[in-house]
């Protein structure tokens, strides 16, 4: 029996693929199984192939694999798209009465189960529930207790009233009964359940949750895939804590609103994706020069320009590191797991306020839209600490005023960090500007002051390096000759790739780096290894460039930029190829 089950529902956009997948994923999570989902969606609202894949196991799952066990196919194309992943034990659930599936024949050794999804749904109260019938059928095929499905139907439709919930439960049962009665099936699938209570969420949601927990009270944004979920999550929740979400007229406005709120003393954030980052770059320099703490979340998608809006890429590193005219320090944090999206968001706010600079928090599309199960206490709210940095009040503001009693928001300090006075603070009134300024914040072109202010701002980076732990996460065999480094969502597939490689007696040491700037110095690790391979989802190897630069050493690169995330077996093969290990060609 396979240890994990790979399940998918696919059809046309508008077929309710997303909610179908989500309901099943939630049921599995409620049943104490780990879940990892992935979405394949086109950038259109109706029409176009979309699929929702769920991988589930009693152990933690971190990535997708290219094997599909159960497929609910609402269109022929769903089968075509996934042909490579089907195997002899695969089961395809379809509705032979559906026009698109009329002449369907299950390919190869796979089993096709023709279930009259629509007709059964109508029996239960409405054709719209045909997806739920299919879910019931899938439960029967996998020996999965249908009561868990009930729970997630209650969660999904509870607001719509008891009758709707009951109809859906009935639809699921009709699907299950049909399979049990009509087919003489013996499948190798038998989904074990546990008593664990997991939570199931995606990276965008984790970022939104981290923002609220981390004290963010002001959010301004302009909708863009795949960052919109952050805004939608916060809207309706942050208000409970006295905050607000403003949908701005564009990204220029969004970031300026966020800047205004930050200057007014709120923890403030905006989130966007590539094209929005370009627009925000104008104000980015102002944020940095005026030393305003702000978190700018960039949920990366495939670029350049509008590129492939619903596809994976990690191509914006250079834009975040170097974007904008002139030179200003900024931090770039890149969580590597969904749980880390939460923690790094909290950290991003602390770093922004402690060092009074803009912090880019970046997740790639795969991390943002993928859902995964976690133990609830991986989001330990008690461990959240909020550090607002050097904020002055009426009592100590005197220490930071000049002989005329004027407050010095850009005071030259040894650690590069100046005091902050929130508007409303008596005697704290001061000017902030994008112009080069003196300690009072007033415009200056004095050459000495210019140099001092530039150095003061840069000094914050050194201070942060001394005070913070810009570390990496380590996996695999510490003594291995091969070192693999990655950032962002590649951690998941890489963790499983390590297992695949071990099966072939290949040991690797794997470092997953959540800090792009400031970042850990990896020179020693690279020196200790025979080979270093940097894995990332872009064409040019932007992170690999940084690693080479830091370590003064050449690294090998594995780059993927077709819009699809790495999967574990593929990554293992790529690493073998880089190491010159030839893979046996299958006969």
């Amino acid at each position, binding site marked *: 029996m396979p240890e994990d089950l790979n399940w998918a529902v696919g059809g046309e956009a508008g077929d309710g693929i997303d909610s179908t997948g989500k309901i099943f994923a939630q049921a599995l999570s409620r049943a104490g199984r780990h879940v990892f989902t992935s979405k394949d969606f086109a950038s259109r609202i109706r029409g176009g192939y979309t699929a929702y894949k769920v991988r589930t196991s009693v152990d933690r799952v971190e990535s997708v694999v290219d094997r599909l066990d159960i497929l609910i196919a609402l269109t022929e194309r769903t089968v075509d798209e996934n042909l490579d992943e089907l195997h002899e034990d695969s089961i395809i659930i379809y509705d032979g009465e559906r026009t698109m599936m009329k002449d369907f024949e299950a390919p190869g050794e796979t089993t096709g189960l023709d279930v009259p999804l629509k007709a059964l749904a109508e029996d239960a109260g409405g054709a719209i529930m045909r997806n739920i019938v299919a879910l019931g059928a899938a439960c029967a095929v996998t020996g999965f207790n249908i009561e868990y499905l009930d729970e997630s139907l209650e969660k999904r439709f509870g607001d719509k009233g008891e009758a709707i919930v009951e109809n859906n439960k009935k639809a699921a049962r009709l699907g299950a009964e049909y399979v049990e009665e009509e087919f003489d099936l013996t499948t190798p699938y038998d989904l074990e359940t546990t008593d664990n209570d*997991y939570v199931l969420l995606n990276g965008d949601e984790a970022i939104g949750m981290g923002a609220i927990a981390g004290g963010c009270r002001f959010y301004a944004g302009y909708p863009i895939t795949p960052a919109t979920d952050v805004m939608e999550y916060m809207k309706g929740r942050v208000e409970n804590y006295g905050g607000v979400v403003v949908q701005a007229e564009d990204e220029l406005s969004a970031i300026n609103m966020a800047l205004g709120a930050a200057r007014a003393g709120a*923890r403030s954030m905006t989130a966007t994706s590539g094209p929005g980052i370009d627009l925000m770059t104008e104000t980015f320099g102002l944020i940095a020069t005026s030393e305003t703490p702000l978190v700018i979340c960039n949920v990366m998608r495939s670029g350049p320009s509008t590129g492939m809006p619903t596809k994976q890429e990690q191509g914006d590193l250079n834009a975040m590191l170097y974007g904008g005219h002139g030179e200003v320090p900024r931090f770039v944090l890149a969580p590597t797991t969904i749980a880390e999206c939460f923690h790094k968001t909290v950290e991003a706010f602390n770093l922004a306020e402690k060092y009074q600079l803009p912090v880019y928090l970046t997740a790639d599309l795969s991390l943002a839209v993928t859902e995964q199960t976690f133990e609830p206490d991986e989001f330990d709210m008690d461990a959240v600490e909020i550090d607002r940095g050097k904020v002055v009040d009426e009592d100590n503001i005197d220490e930071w005023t000049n002989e005329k009693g004027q407050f010095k928001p850009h005071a030259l300090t040894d650690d590069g960090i100046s005091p902050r006075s929130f508007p409303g603070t008596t005697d704290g009134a001061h000017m902030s*500007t994008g112009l080069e300024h003196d300690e009072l914040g007033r415009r200056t072109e004095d050459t000495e002051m210019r140099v001092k202010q530039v150095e003061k701002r840069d000094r914050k980076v050194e201070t942060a390096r001394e005070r913070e732990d810009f570390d990496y996460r380590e996996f695999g065999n510490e003594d291995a000759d091969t070192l693999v480094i990655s950032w962002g969502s590649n951690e998941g597939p890489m963790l499983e790739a390590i297992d695949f490689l071990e099966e072939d007696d290949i040991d690797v040491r794997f470092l997953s780096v959540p800090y792009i700037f400031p970042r850990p110095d990896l020179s020693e690790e690279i020196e200790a290894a025979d080979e270093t391979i940097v894995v990332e989802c872009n064409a040019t190897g932007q992170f690999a460039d940084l690693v080479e630069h830091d370590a003064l050493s050449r690294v090998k690169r594995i780059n993927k930029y077709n819009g699809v995330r790495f999967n574990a077996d593929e990554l293992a093969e790529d690493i073998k190829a880089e190491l010159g290990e030839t893979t046996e060609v299958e006969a």
Partner: protein
Amino acid sequence: MSSDIRFTDFKSDKQPTWCPGCGDFGTMNGMMKALANTGNDPDNTFVVAGIGCSGKIGTYMHSYALHGVHGRALPVGTGVKMANPDLEVMVAGGDGDGYSIGAGHFVHAVRRNVDMTYVVMDNRIYGLTKGQFSPTSREDFETSTSPDGTHQQPVNPLALALAAGGTFIAQSFSSDSQRHAEIVQEAIEHDGFGFVNVYSPCVTFNDVDTYDYFRDAIVDVGDEDFDHDPSDYDAAKDLILDRDKEYQGVIYQDDSSVGFEEREGVTEPMTDIPDGAPDDAMDLVREFY
């Protein structure tokens, strides 16, 4: 807020570098008077300024202030006010800043109706970049970038504001200092977005829209014999669309307006947050069961 605040308390000790005679001196003095008269003090006031000669105003005033990037002052002001509704927020900039590069933000700020005051120093020219035409320049106006006339119609900022659902639309003239200060004061006192277009002549680059021109052209809608009712939308519309005259005073005011921050339920400054996650934060996690 203390009652002994004088308008000079809003003055910084920086000497303005505006050309002698620039209309912006009068505009700024009126703003400071209006702020003091409405019981504000520098520590509860936030001035956001654009880029341009006009945008330097934040430097010459004393308050919490931000001098931002060109055209984006209104969104900054919106953020400030939403994050701390206790602050008096005043946004100031030029006609280029507000109606050209920032025109989009202008329309949306008006429509959102955040409780702040927006003062535009309209000199119908780009001052800081040394004399190119601006969006309010006349159609036949000759400048360094329009040697044979602009060939572009001027925008009508008041009409834009009215069309966008403005709740307080006014115009003033910087050298009529008494009236100008009064009008800004009314804008501050208005609950919602108070918009004042101020004729603020550029003595260096604009020899058409001069003090003399405005002095002759201006009609005060507040004059008794003029008899204008600012709550009368149609009357306001007629005045605004009449481009043959220059009107000063409160042209339109909707007293029933409620600021965006209030409609969004923002009542407290967002400055005070707990040292850790909110007490019930685990509920946020449990939602994902």
